[in-house]
């Protein structure tokens, strides 16, 4: 057993946790913003997948990682916009529309990818990393955490920015009120529909970047259905984090570690059946839900359409 915990193994475990965790974190962060405003965003899986597809496509054609991430964000927005239109402006069911958008994005990306690349899965070149001087030379965690593509640092920064917006800005208060008591927000002269629209579009942008992270950095290729439930894990993260962005980060890294353990354990040649190892992340989700599910608190107005004057 002691041979298992070599430096190489630990480094790959932490690295894997980060690589798998960042997209989950972006999804969870995005979902948290929507949920805070009272929108249960089930379409987030579709937003991620479309972001993964468009991000890959842009990066493939332009050769620019940054444009790829921008494309990913726009891809997420393209799925979030109909969600905002149907659910927030028109008041249709957030659950039905969310499922429809996810299924639609799955079908559309698979189809488009098939037309463009047939059965070939072109690869993107490896993304350059930015080593932070000093920190990156710490053993084990140095190379895993501080010698990463710059987008990783930006994503972690997004957590801090979100926390700041939640706590320190009028928009943060408006988000909270939109999910808790939209009528009070309306009475204070703030347009509930606008607040929720901005929230959903932000979710789409963040989820899209998360998707692009999976295709550009995690895999380097695009494969249909490649987000594989990451958006849904993001929903779980957002619910468990109870409105706190830093908890999303911690949870995402935990889930990421579970996901990466599947690879790391296989690399280390542990004699556990692969199927069991691959169950690990989902077992972790279940465990977390069983342990903390009761304490998850959701905004009272979650999933409901706001109609002025109706009580």
């Amino acid at each position, binding site marked *: 057993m002691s041979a298992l915990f070599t430096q190489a193994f630990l480094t790959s475990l932490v690295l894997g946790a980060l690589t798998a965790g960042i997209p989950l974190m972006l999804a969870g962060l995005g979902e948290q913003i929507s949920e805070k405003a009272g929108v249960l965003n089930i379409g987030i899986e579709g937003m991620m997948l479309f972001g993964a597809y468009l991000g890959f496509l842009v990066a493939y054609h332009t050769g620019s990682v940054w444009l790829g991430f921008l494309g990913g964000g726009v891809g997420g927005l393209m799925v979030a916009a109909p969600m905002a239109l149907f659910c927030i402006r028109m008041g249709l069911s957030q659950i039905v529309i969310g499922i429809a958008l996810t299924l639609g994005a799955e079908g559309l990306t698979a189809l488009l990818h098939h037309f463009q690349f047939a059965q070939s899965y072109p690869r993107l070149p490896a993304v350059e990393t930015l080593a932070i001087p000093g920190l990156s030379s710490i053993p084990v965690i140095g190379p895993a955490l501080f010698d990463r593509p710059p987008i990783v640092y930006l994503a972690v920064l997004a957590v801090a920015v979100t926390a700041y917006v939640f706590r320190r*800005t*009028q928009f943060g208060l408006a988000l*909270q*009120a939109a999910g*808790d*008591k939209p009528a*009070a*927000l309306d009475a*204070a*002269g703030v347009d509930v529909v606008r607040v929720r629209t901005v929230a959903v579009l932000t979710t789409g942008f963040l989820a899209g970047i998360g998707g692009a992270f999976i295709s550009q950095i995690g895999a380097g290729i695009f494969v249909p259905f490649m987000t594989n439930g990451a958006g849904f894990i993001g929903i779980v993260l957002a619910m468990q984090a109870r409105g706190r962005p830093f908890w999303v980060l911690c949870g995402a890294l935990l889930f990421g570690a579970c996901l990466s353990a599947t690879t790391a354990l296989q690399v280390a040649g542990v004699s556990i059946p692969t199927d069991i190892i691959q169950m690990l992340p989902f077992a972790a989700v279940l465990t977390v839900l069983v342990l903390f599910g009761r304490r998850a608190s959701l905004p009272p107005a979650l999933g409901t359409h706001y109609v002025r004057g109706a009580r």
Partner: protein
Amino acid sequence: MTQIHTSSPPQAEPRPIVSLDHVTKRFPGVVANERVSFDLWPGEVHVLLGENGAGKSTLVGMLSGLQLPDEGGVLIDGREVRIASPARALELGIGTVFQHSMLVPSLSVVDNMALGGKWWSRPDRDGVARRMAAVCADIGVTIDPHAKVGSLSLGEQQQVEIVRALMRGSRVLILDEATAMLTPKGAEDLGALMGRLTKLGIAVVFITHKLNEALAFGHRITVLRLGRKVGEIAPERLAALGPAAATAEIVRLMFGAGVATDETAPAPRRGRRAGAPLLEIEALAVDDPSVPVAGINLSVSPGEIVGLAGIDGNGQKQFAEALAGQRRLAAGHIRLGGEAIERLDVGGRRQRGLRYVTDDRLGEGTVGSFPISLNLLLKQVGEAPFWRHGLEQSDAIATHARRLVSEFDVRTPGIETAIGKLSGGNIQKALLARELSGAARAVIFAKPTYGLDVQNIRATRQRIREAAEQGLAVILISTDLEEVLELSDRVAVMSRGHIVGVVDNDADARSRVGELMSGVTA
């Protein structure tokens, strides 16, 4: 947000701050307010008193910007204005505290008050807290500005809303049914706060249907009845009358003593008490945060109708639900035909013949989307002969439904029609059919004619009479004094969770019931 501070009491002005000048407001089929005039003077608590449906909410809606009058005008400081929105009302200095809180529970008090600035600006928490502290000091309340609203009591939340209204420069404060959700202590505190507000020259409109609160907190009392203003008692007169005489006057205004009853209605029944009591209630108590019910003793003989009068919200609902088995008893005994039933559940009590006709016809009484046939069996689902081995016996259900529909004259296209599509009167008939059929021995009617039209009111009252004639023990809960006096053999009066007296329904029952209802003699 304009912050007008209200520190020094203004000089007494010779004219009212706000006047409603003969306003009329019609809704489809109803005249909610008919030529009502209403003056609001600075430094006064003006109580708006009336039963449910008297037009209080409509009148207040026109002040707070929710509704515009169809006729008549609104004057502020003698100038005619149009209050088209709540925001406009606030600009004009009229703040409203609605019955249901308009605060965000998950935000702190200051954040609630700071809500609504530019999106990317920082909420000015320190500034808000400072201004809040100043207003709080003026009106003598203590609120922790950083407490989460959700952790405050309902009374404290109301204080927050009052402070917020004052911070926005309100000179007029409307408190809509403000004590309805409060504990007795909370209501007292609110009364004291209203007193302090008027000392600052603020005009308060206090809407209530509780007479004792009107007398305790009000300086001027306006009584509405069926959309009309039936009387106003000015401060000097109120002081001169004293509580007892004022109560008598208000009861007369609210319930219209001596108004000739419908001539076709049969004379009051009396003296039918015979035999041992069938339904006995002993020291019944119910825990309830708003109206705790305690010490209820009541017994009803077969064939007797005991009316339970009282102003709405004095524990009648809690009492009825506890009796029917829908609420836990805190203490006490209920016996039906000598058998103790207080430990039985709803089904057990029903089986032994206790029936409850709820006033919440579409909420707890029926399932609106279910057909009439099933609604008629809602409390017997799974019982033979209508269900066997868990399977529906459609023939038995249909036969049962057809029989009751014709027997109780339910006007419906068919027995498979969803009950929610019927009129209120027909839903009530179906409910009566369900509760009065079978082996009923004692029935509780909760506001049985509330919201019905004249014809259905008459039909329902006839059913209640028939039920008693068949030897059932009847408890009739009603806020309509006329109805209670028309039907009952005896009248019990409920006030603040207690039965404050039981009187025989004889010639001077009306005045004695009125006195008891006011709570003054309690």
